[in-house]
């Protein structure tokens, strides 16, 4: 098993004919993801790479192909519109890769998506991968391996770094989810922790957080109450100066709030083993899984 997506997931790609969309669709097809449809308004009727039919609208694509999930690679100003359209078409899983979506747009998107019972992952995220089954987004498939450790992260390349450490030591992953680096996002650490806790094929969880906001602190409180599986955590940005956005829109220390120290302290009180370096993930997991 896995969380959120597996080999049966029938994926639609919004923005399939764009530069990023076409590149990553090829990668997903190569990995074995069931990409059943693409959407680019005005390009309905085309066939992508000779195999994937392209439609003008999401509703049409869903009706024709039975897609149940979507991944969005459209530019920032169109991203909110793409999410609204996907939620309206009844898709249960919406993964938005786009970086730079205006926060004001997200304040309207989030309640809309929730009222329709859909799960939004992102925006500004690398997506998710259930190794050996499906990948939705941009996480490189070759660094992952099937296994029993669940991973959730606010970052992209830091996730790759840590996954690579795991795979190189023969520790496979059930699902790796990047929830994104924006201040307002669809899926939180807690949503992923709850899913991993309920997943019988996940034995332990790795959580990669960073400075800014209180999502990690809330996650630590949730772990304390509801998670019985071992959790290993990391916080990036211990050397970040206050008041500056460290690349990710959400990675900012506001006043005295959102610091790495405060998040690490919260992890420690919740019995989350804290990695000092990315490489520590292997030893800490092994110690907790004994």
């Amino acid at each position, binding site marked *: 098993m896995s969380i959120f997506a597996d080999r049966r997931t029938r994926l639609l790609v919004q923005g399939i004919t764009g530069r990023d969309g076409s590149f990553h669709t090829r990668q997903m097809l190569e990995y074995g993801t069931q990409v059943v449809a693409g959407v680019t308004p005005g390009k309905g009727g085309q066939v992508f790479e000779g195999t994937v039919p392209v439609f003008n609208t999401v509703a049409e694509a869903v009706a024709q192909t039975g897609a149940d999930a979507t991944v969005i690679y459209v530019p920032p100003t169109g991203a909110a519109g793409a999410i609204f359209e996907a939620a309206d078409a009844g898709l249960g899983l919406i993964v938005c890769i786009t970086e730079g979506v205006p926060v004001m747009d997200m304040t309207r998107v989030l309640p809309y998506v929730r009222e329709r019972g859909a799960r939004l992952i992102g925006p500004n995220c690398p997506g998710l991968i259930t190794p050996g089954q499906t990948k939705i987004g941009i996480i490189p498939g070759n660094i992952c391996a099937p296994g029993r450790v669940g991973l959730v992260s606010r970052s992209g390349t830091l996730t790759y770094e840590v996954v690579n450490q795991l795979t190189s030591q023969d520790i496979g992953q059930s699902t790796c989810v990047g929830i994104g680096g924006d201040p307002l996002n669809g899926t939180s650490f807690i949503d992923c922790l709850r899913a991993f806790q309920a997943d019988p094929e996940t034995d332990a969880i790795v959580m990669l957080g960073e*400075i800014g906001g209180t999502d990690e602190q809330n996650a630590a409180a949730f772990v304390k109450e509801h998670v019985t599986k071992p959790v290993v955590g990391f916080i990036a940005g211990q050397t970040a100066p206050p008041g500056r956005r460290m690349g990710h829109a959400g990675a900012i220390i506001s*006043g005295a709030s959102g610091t790495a120290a405060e998040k690490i302290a919260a992890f420690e009180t919740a019995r989350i083993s804290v990695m000092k370096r990315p490489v520590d993930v292997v030893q800490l997991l092994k110690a907790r899984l004994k």
Partner: protein
Amino acid sequence: MNLHEYQGRVLFRAAGIPMPDGDVASTPSEAESIARRVGGTVVVKAQVHAGGRGKAGGVKLASTPAEAAGAAEKILGMTIKGLVVHKVLVVPAADIASEAYVGLIMDRASQRPVFMVSPAGGIDIEEVAATTPEKIRRLAIDPRYGILPHQALGLAFFLYPDFAKARAAARIMEQLYFLFVANGCSLAEINPLVTTPDGKVLALDAKVSIDDNELDRRPDLAQLRDETAEEPSEVKARRANLTFIKLSGNVGCCVNGAGLAMATMDLVKYYGGEPANFLDIGGSSNPDKVVSALRIITSDPSVKAILFNIFGGITRTDDVANGIVTATRQFKVNVPIVIRLTGTNEREAIRILEAAGMQALSDMDEAVQKVVALVREAA
């Protein structure tokens, strides 16, 4: 992106929020003519992105136009918290009966715009929150409906028991909410919102921050950016589509991805070094970006060694290698470079670097330890 007070006032005025008259000046004579036009005693305020302007001597009262010119003369060119003052705002001094605080922020926890109001205005709101939290009222606004009339009035009555004043303040909150949404703000703040002895309610300050993600679709707001208020290297980096933040250490860092860039800085510190910067070259792998990145890092004289940490996913490591080689041909890099790269096309990348007499490591910890050791040797 933070706006200056005089820029915030333009948005406030467009939204109809009552404020004292006044204008912005770049020279003492401009300040003098504004003071003459508005009449009476004026306040001359430094326009810099720094709190505590008053304490630093950047806010002065002037009772005549000549005095206003003198105050502007003193303030223009002054440095406040490292920022040079290029403009002053000249506004009539208001008669103040009371000071309150009205702020609107984009709140991560509730995922909504949240009003914060307090009858204790004119001082740092974080201080009020820490010492007398009962003097602050917060209200999350449902963005689908905006602020409702009874919500605005409820907040306003928390500030003023008097109905006429409460009604005026409620109107200002509705206007503030409108401008917040219309301009894609992450913060819009009036501190202080004052009452005058004759019962008027006025905004005496205008603090506005715009969500950076709005600027692409709002060129009118994007052009309000004051690049003189920024670190020159950060301006160069933004023009090259790089995210760069200057820090005080001596290990230059060039990384792909924000999370990995932060983790790399942390690891430099872990092994006893100090990062000179945060730099994310982003997901795309354009060799030109790498050249710009190296130019920016090497222009900082405190940098004693440079670390590349590249995990190739979408980023092709051979593109990064080409960028490094191109840069070292275009200009002389006088400090050692330690390169760690792994992932997409790494074999080709290693070949390119070796052909140019450089080496690449594949392990992040090894690379960081090496660069820290090189900096120690250079010291």
